[in-house]
């Protein structure tokens, strides 16, 4: 029992709470969901082995699943395409401002607001006939579109609300990135005659690559797995236009009691997230991950 000495046991004992937590709340659920993805299980009766049937059904017989995947990638892509540049602009503007802390606090507020409250407020703002946005457009003689009721516009509206919610979070990360850039680079550039545009494009942006990579990956993963806003704001409608895969899985599991198939959908989604994340890492590898670490 030479291995059973203080040097071996003590670290394990210190790590035990974390290990137990990880086993109970991560490894067991992940393993169990993989197990039931190969079973037919309604959670009320014993699982019945189903082989790859759940995966085959989703990939070959369920057009709704593909539609929700498209919606999911549109949502995740939209939040990144609009949210990250916006966070860059806002954070850069605030870095030049005298009241940075005040601005950051204001922009952080949506992050700590309850999602149900956020959804209800935006429902009022985006209402077709009486919403604040359409009433504002009416004042300048513009038509009032159905922001949440027109299937062609509803996803855009949901993306914009999510971008508004996430802006403070993204902005803070970019601000931290901006503050980590050594001022001597800017001084040297100014001495060499660079104007503010050159400084932003040639110094700030390249040096923010690690932060941008981090934002890209975390925003992508958040966007892919997010559904709370759609659940409260649009319930996936109209016409399924905001029904994302996570919401589809949620209904599949807890409304239809198809927990095996919902788990299979989760693993397909995981595989897609994994592939896209690898691509992102590869694209930003140079000056990205290594620099961030």
């Amino acid at each position, binding site marked *: 029992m030479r291995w059973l000495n203080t040097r071996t046991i003590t670290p394990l004992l210190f790590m035990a709470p974390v290990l137990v937590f990880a086993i109970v709340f991560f490894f067991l659920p992940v393993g169990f969901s993989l197990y039931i993805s190969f079973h037919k299980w*309604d*959670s009320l*009766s014993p699982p019945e082995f189903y082989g790859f049937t759940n995966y085959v059904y989703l990939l070959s017989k369920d057009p709704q699943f593909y539609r929700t995947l498209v919606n999911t990638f549109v949502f995740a892509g939209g939040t990144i395409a609009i949210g990250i540049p916006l966070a860059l602009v806002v954070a850069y503007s605030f870095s030049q401002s005298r009241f940075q802390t005040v601005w950051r606090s204001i922009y952080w507020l949506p992050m700590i607001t309850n999602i149900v409250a956020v959804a209800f407020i935006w429902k009022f703002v985006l209402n077709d*006939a009486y919403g604040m946005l359409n009433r504002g457009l009416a004042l300048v003689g513009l038509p*009032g579109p159905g922001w949440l009721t027109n299937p062609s516009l509803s996803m855009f509206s949901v993306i914009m609300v999510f971008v508004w919610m996430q802006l403070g979070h993204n902005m803070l990360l970019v601000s931290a990135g901006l503050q980590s850039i050594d001022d001597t680079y800017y001084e040297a550039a100014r001495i060499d005659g660079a104007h503010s545009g050159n400084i932003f494009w040639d110094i700030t942006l390249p040096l923010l690559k690690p932060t941008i990579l981090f934002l890209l990956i975390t925003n992508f993963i958040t966007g892919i797995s997010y559904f709370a806003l759609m659940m409260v704001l649009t319930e996936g*409608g109209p*016409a399924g236009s905001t029904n994302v895969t996570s919401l589809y899985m949620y209904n599949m599991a*807890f409304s239809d009691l198809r927990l095996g198939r919902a788990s299979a959908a989760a693993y397909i989604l995981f595989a897609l997230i994994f592939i896209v994340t690898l691509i992102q890492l590869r694209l930003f590898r140079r000056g990205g991950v290594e620099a961030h670490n």
Partner: protein
Amino acid sequence: MSLNSKVLLHSISAVALSAALAVPAIAQDTKTITIATHYNQENIEPILACYTEYEASHPGIKIESQQVSYADFLQTIVTSRVGGTSPDIYNIYSIWAPQLVKAQALAVPPADITDWIKANYAEGTVGAATIGGQVYGIPTELSVYQLVYNKKILAEAGFDHPPATWAELEEMGAAVVKKNDQGVITTAGFAFGPTVANAVHPFYALMYANGTPPFNADYTATNLTSPTAIKVLTDMVELYQKGITSVGNEVGQFVAGGSAMAIMANWQEGGLKAAITDDFDNTVGVAPIPHDAGTPGGTMLYSFLWAVDSTSDVQPEAWELLKWLNTPAADGTLSCTGAMLNGMGALTGSTADTAAMGDSLTDAFSTPYVEAVASGLALTQPNNLQEAQIERILRTYIEQAWAGTLTPTDALTAADAEIQAVLEE
């Protein structure tokens, strides 16, 4: 210590010891029946009083009430069964029953209870509680769809009666439409959506009214590509194309005068009365669902039912309690369940409670709903194994037709293909 004191002390000790020994014995004899419902505190008050009365008259029975929101109810059943803490009695939506029966989660009632249900409840409601020919519970709240219209809005446009046919509905609807400066409809002639219930249930109700059920008798195929189904959806879509309604107009806006007509269930009476406090009877009217000449008319109903969990260790006591809760104490009086439903303005499948509700069912709002049930024209919502999933699929395609992204025929053909795949599983 004197002798008397010693005797007294010994006596007290003996009594205390006896009491201490007796407590576990009594506790062991007490049976707890847990009942889960989705009703809120105000709705459930009458039945909570009945629980107390039952406990008093049945020593050894303790009743625990669990109130769970409707949205979380099925999940609660699932989670509690996984955790081994299932309630003994549930008040469930009829479309959940097939899944629960398939999973053997519902207990089969004793034969005498089944006979009692069949003898004392309207046929349509017994049908909603029947899966594969077996009755699984006691019908409770009954919801029926009818046309609800705003009398004042129609009167302003010169109409003093509700539409009887779809052509009349279109004519009346077109006459009452109001738009704001942006061209957005502020008062629609009609409204559908945006929930599953407000999209699919009106569609089902219109199919029944026009003589074709949404599914065949054994739920192995849909009738969604039938001429009736395509006609019904085409009629709906015409309301959008003619500007009588829009995707921005919803059933919920009826209460504020946002729409002149909608297909709504009777349980919405309470909400409408709470909002339209002034001159309700002269504002809100109810009529049978408009249908084409030569078709039978009718609508859809759905029901909730009391059911007992198959793992309950107090099943006989649970069924006895349920029968007591659903039996009037005397002729002409309401049962406990009936009193609760009457307070909510809801309908019941119980023939005794329906008779006892009397005046509350003969007012102008309730009469068309009651008549639909009594006439047998209100038919049961399909009891498919995956009805919730099927309705979500159908909603998506119905909404696509409303929005004009698919034609009614294409929408229903696509819906039929997807739903058929679900039925064949």
